[in-house]
């Protein structure tokens, strides 16, 4: 990411304390604890349906766990998760009827980001597509547009569900470079993939979920 688009982040921390999640009869995870600090990346890895997305949604404050506590802190003070989190879900969260430029402009306004949106659009490689409706974009291009929102939000903690899904080679290296500069600027990342082979980021800590026998 070009340096003029990187936002320097305050120190922050996400804490999972003995968190459990039950869906129906199945215990997805039991007494999960971890901490994620500024500049760190935690890579959650596991098969489909094992609870990766549940962890991410709980970490984003979008779902409640069955047990346990989650704390979001910025400079040692408890904050609302919405001050820390930018979430790239499985669902891209784009408006079908908006063009790429309108979509970017909407989020720039809502996040009060004054940097010209063209810079962000360029950074994710969608400069040729500014007048195209998001519904007409390819799956990978939609992921790029969702990445653009992560950058525009200037939130320190990125939560990413299968970030490299449907991304081509250049898209994958784009994600890697965005992640690296986000971490270098004091941000942190919580990401989940089912892919066991490709490590996500060079210094990622890895949390592997397995079925309880």
């Amino acid at each position: 990411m070009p340096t003029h688009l990187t936002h320097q982040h305050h120190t922050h921390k996400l804490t999972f304390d003995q968190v459990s999640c039950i869906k129906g009869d199945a215990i997805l995870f039991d007494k999960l604890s971890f901490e994620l600090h500024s500049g760190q990346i935690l890579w959650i890895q596991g098969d489909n349906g094992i609870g990766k997305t549940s962890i991410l949604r709980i970490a984003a404050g979008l779902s409640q766990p069955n047990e346990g506590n989650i704390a979001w802190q910025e400079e040692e003070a408890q904050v609302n998760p919405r001050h820390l989190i930018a979430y790239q879900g499985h669902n891209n969260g784009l408006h079908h009827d908006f063009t790429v430029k309108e979509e970017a402009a909407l989020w720039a306004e809502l996040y009060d980001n004054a940097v010209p949106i063209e810079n962000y659009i360029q950074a994710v490689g969608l400069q040729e597509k500014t007048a195209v409706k998001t519904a007409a974009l390819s799956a990978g291009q939609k992921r790029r547009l969702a990445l653009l929102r992560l950058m525009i939000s200037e939130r320190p903690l990125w939560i990413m569900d299968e970030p490299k899904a449907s991304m081509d080679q250049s898209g994958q290296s784009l994600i890697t470079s965005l992640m690296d500069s986000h971490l270098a600027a004091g941000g942190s990342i919580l990401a989940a993939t089912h892919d066991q082979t490709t490590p996500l980021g060079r210094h990622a800590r890895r949390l592997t979920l397995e079925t309880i026998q």
Partner: protein
Amino acid sequence: MNTLLWRDLRLALRNPRGWVMSVIFFVLFLSVMAIALGGNTTKLRPLAPPLIWMALLFGQLLTFPTIFQRDIVDGTYEQLHLSGISGLSITTSKMISCFVVSICPLLLAIPALGIGYGLDKTTLAAILLSVILGGPAIIAYGIFSGSIVAKEGNAGFLVILIALPFLVPVLIFALGGIASYRENGLWNLEFQALSGISLIAIAAAIPATAATLSSYQD
């Protein structure tokens, strides 16, 4: 708030399936009714207010299921929530945009249809006033019932069951107000009650809708 309202208006105008259907229904229903009743204006004139209100209610009921569907399904509601916008703002903006796209076109259509029904100016003015005063209540109950069924695919029938009981008092006071407009003037008791219903409906529907939408996050 302006950003949000501008977003809702643009989305509504670009994806007009819901509200255009209600406007077309409104016009077609009243035209077909005029033909079915023989096209004689002396017979049509007294029937115009109840027919217009029936067309209005049934037409609006068609739009309710789609109000929040897109936002919930494509995940934009969630992203708006994460960006720090309150559910109250999201709901208020949706209510204003729904009023603009689904009630305002009817205010233009009613005078045109009024000519066909042989309405005099006073009755026409009373009908327009009843729609302006009662419209907010219709939209308020509409967004509330729309939020309840936002995750359901085919929820048209459920919406009718939820919203119709709330809409009956609106209908009664609107028609009562039109009937007594000539003797008791613009600010008659029925229209006062209708305005009261609209205010209560708005005050109740905004937090109720916001609460329903936030319950989808679990």
